[in-house]
């Protein structure tokens, strides 16, 4: 009987363990060159014969709304490597570029020399309209838009826009007893993410060639949402991991580099016109399982997990756990089938990548705050005594 260690290369035997694909070493340090080559190869190999060949015909003039924080950092590098002219629209509060851990000096200098910046506040709609109209762009990547009103001036400024690619969210789906979410599922007009929905509707109503990407939870180096970071703080401190209720709730993480690749895959792709795609990891995971996966990825021993009933506590404004307390996962089949995209990071590999390039080097966005943990653990201790 085949009993294989997770990291072995894929074998022909259907009984081999392949729950974690072997990670090419070039991906453990983000190497734009390696990725763009594999992207081009992918596009060439998997276009069906006779279908409309829409390749990125020459360099595009691309504007990324945002691009200095997380997704855009990786996306902009891929686009620059592909030869496009890429501008980042930001207020300039964060540095326009930063060298990534694992990125060679040469790669960084090359990127830095090519990336352009348009300084402004996207909430200043007049400025957005005039500056974009003045410069003219072929393609917009809207990575940080939340409300439909923010998109209107962009569309007004660029009547000849070739494509508007939007970072939406799987949070728009209406909660359901039947999962995973498919792109055809009902959406929730009252959700916290209704601005994303309204933006998608606006794009559709304006007759723009739009594509919308709906990620689930994004993770990876530079994540500013404390997803994996939340677990890493506790693992490093040797603290138990407090998980609400049963811990069998299922969630889904998608690596930012895989997401960036998906964003590039839809560029100039006629199949993606007016389409929505769920983009995330290939498998889903329980809350308890995620705690264990973070430990594995970061090289910590298996953590102690403490379950608690959130109703017994008043945490005030503090968030005691980084995930919504429900099952939440989406199928990525449509993107795989129609775009020839597939995630390259398995969960443990992806968490290792995040740890090795970020938290493990001593960097994080939010300092550790164990206030809610102590409330939970304090109460558990009392019950035991």
């Amino acid at each position, binding site marked *: *009987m085949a009993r294989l260690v997770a990291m072995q290369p894929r074998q022909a035997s259907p009984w081999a363990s*392949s*729950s974690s694909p072997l990670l090419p070493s070039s991906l453990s340090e983000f190497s734009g060159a390696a990725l763009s080559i594999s992207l081009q190869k992918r596009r060439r190999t998997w276009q069906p*014969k*006779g279908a409309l060949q829409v390749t990125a015909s020459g360099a595009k003039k691309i504007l990324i709304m945002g691009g200095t924080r997380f997704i855009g950092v990786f996306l902009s590098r891929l686009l620059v490597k592909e030869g496009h002219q890429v501008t980042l629209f930001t207020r300039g509060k964060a540095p326009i570029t930063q060298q990534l851990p694992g990125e060679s000096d040469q790669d960084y200098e090359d990127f830095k020399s090519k990336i352009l910046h348009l300084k402004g506040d996207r909430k200043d709609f007049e400025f957005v309209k005039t500056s974009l109209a003045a410069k003219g762009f072929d393609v917009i990547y809207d990575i940080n838009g939340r409300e439909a009103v923010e998109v209107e001036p962009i569309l007004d400024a660029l009547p000849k826009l070739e494509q508007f690619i939007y970072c939406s969210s799987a949070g728009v789906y209406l909660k359901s007893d039947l999962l995973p979410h498919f792109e055809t599922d009902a959406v929730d007009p009252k959700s916290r993410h209704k601005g994303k929905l309204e933006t998608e509707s606006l794009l559709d109503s304006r007759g723009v060639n739009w594509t919308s990407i709906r990620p689930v939870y994004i993770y990876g180096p530079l994540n500013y949402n404390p997803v994996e970071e939340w677990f890493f703080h506790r693992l490093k401190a040797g603290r138990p991991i407090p998980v609400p209720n049963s811990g069998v709730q299922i969630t889904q993480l998608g690596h930012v580099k895989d997401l960036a690749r998906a964003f590039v895959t839809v560029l100039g792709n006629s199949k993606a016109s007016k389409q929505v795609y769920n983009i995330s990891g290939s498998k889903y995971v329980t809350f308890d399982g995620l705690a264990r996966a973070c430990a594995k990825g970061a090289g910590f021993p298996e953590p102690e997990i403490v379950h608690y009933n959130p109703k017994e506590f008043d945490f005030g404004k503090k968030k005691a756990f980084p995930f919504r307390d429900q099952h939440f996962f989406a199928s990525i089949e449509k993107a795989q089938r129609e775009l*020839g995209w597939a995630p*390259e990071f398995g969960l443990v590999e992806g968490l290792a990548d995040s740890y090795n390039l970020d938290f493990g080097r001593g960097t994080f966005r939010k300092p550790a705050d164990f206030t809610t943990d102590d409330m939970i653990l304090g109460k558990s201790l009392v019950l035991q005594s």
Partner: protein
Amino acid sequence: MAAAVTFAAPALPSLHSSSCSLPPLTHRSLSFVAFTSPTITKLSFHRSSRRFSSAPSTSVFSIKAAAAAADKKRVLVVNTNSGGHAVIGFYFAQQLLSSGHEVTVLTVGDESSDKMKKPPFTRFSELVSAGGKTVWGNPAQVGDIVGTAKFDVVLDNNGKDLDTVKPVADWAISAGVEQFLYISSAGIYKPLDEIPHVEGDLVKDDASHVLVEKYMAGLSFSSWAVFRPQYMIGSGNNKDCEEWFFDRIVRDRPVPIPGSGMQLTNISHVRDLSSMLSLAVENSAAANGKIFNCVSDRAVTFDGLAKLCAQAAGRELKVIHYDPKAVGIDAKKAFPFRNMHFYAEPRAAKEIMGWTSSTNLPEDLKERFDEYVKIGRDKKPMQFDIDDKILGSLKVAVTV
């Protein structure tokens, strides 16, 4: 003997990961040809043209055409005489017959057995009316039972272990059967933190089905495939599924669900399973050497299923969660599904054969409830001993 041909370019375990980028679905039939050599295409035509007088079309689309006369198969279904899987053979036989194939169903045991008084066996006359043959006997003697009859395809929907399936597989080889299909079980997957179970994932070391799967693979069938199902609903089901919920809901009884009720499972309409099997028969080259999770493409939680059953019945729902250990009962006896996340996805069937799921639980459960009432089961007197034990023990805990 024609060589086993695999059209799908990626190796099986990589179905859902990076190197397996698939041609868009709409161009699937074209791209199928793009990746196969002309000689292989001719081979498959040669096989089928041996049998039929009409010259097969050389159009590539006939690889995937629904059973035309040129592609008529002679199929033997070796069917279990009880349990959750019994209904699979029935639907598969019906679908094959309506597509114009020849079908013989060999059911284990005696035609006169009490087991034949339960569905789907009570409906076997439908198979006969549709032109199928139904026979009974011991699968170990399959050769004697079918005599000189020739078959192109055999489905073993019976054996859980090598002792039971080996005689059938060995006979099939000796009798020149080209395609061997086996109903295994998604229950052999090793439970992991990451979900769902995907084809190629680790299976339990001691699972008897695995030995069968490996044995089949080692034989020289032109085409072999393994199907791993979960739970099914559908008329003709031999084992209760949704009925367990209806029984309680129509009698205004609370529905006791172990644990949190958040456990995921996969409840498929059996027509999804038969459509997947039929697709494998009609695409034997593509299906060769593959494992298919034979399930619908949605998970439902225990609580969610209870809700959907209540909605289908148009009745109120009351769910009680309990800890089986604390109550002192065996959850296996108290609840129809295994008490854990148990969810496989049909990724291989979708990617390799372009299969699609048609299970629609809200609609399907309405139909199931209509039949439930039609046969008078809602009025049937019933005992709920285990339920009462659970509810009783919970009441005891509360009054302390």
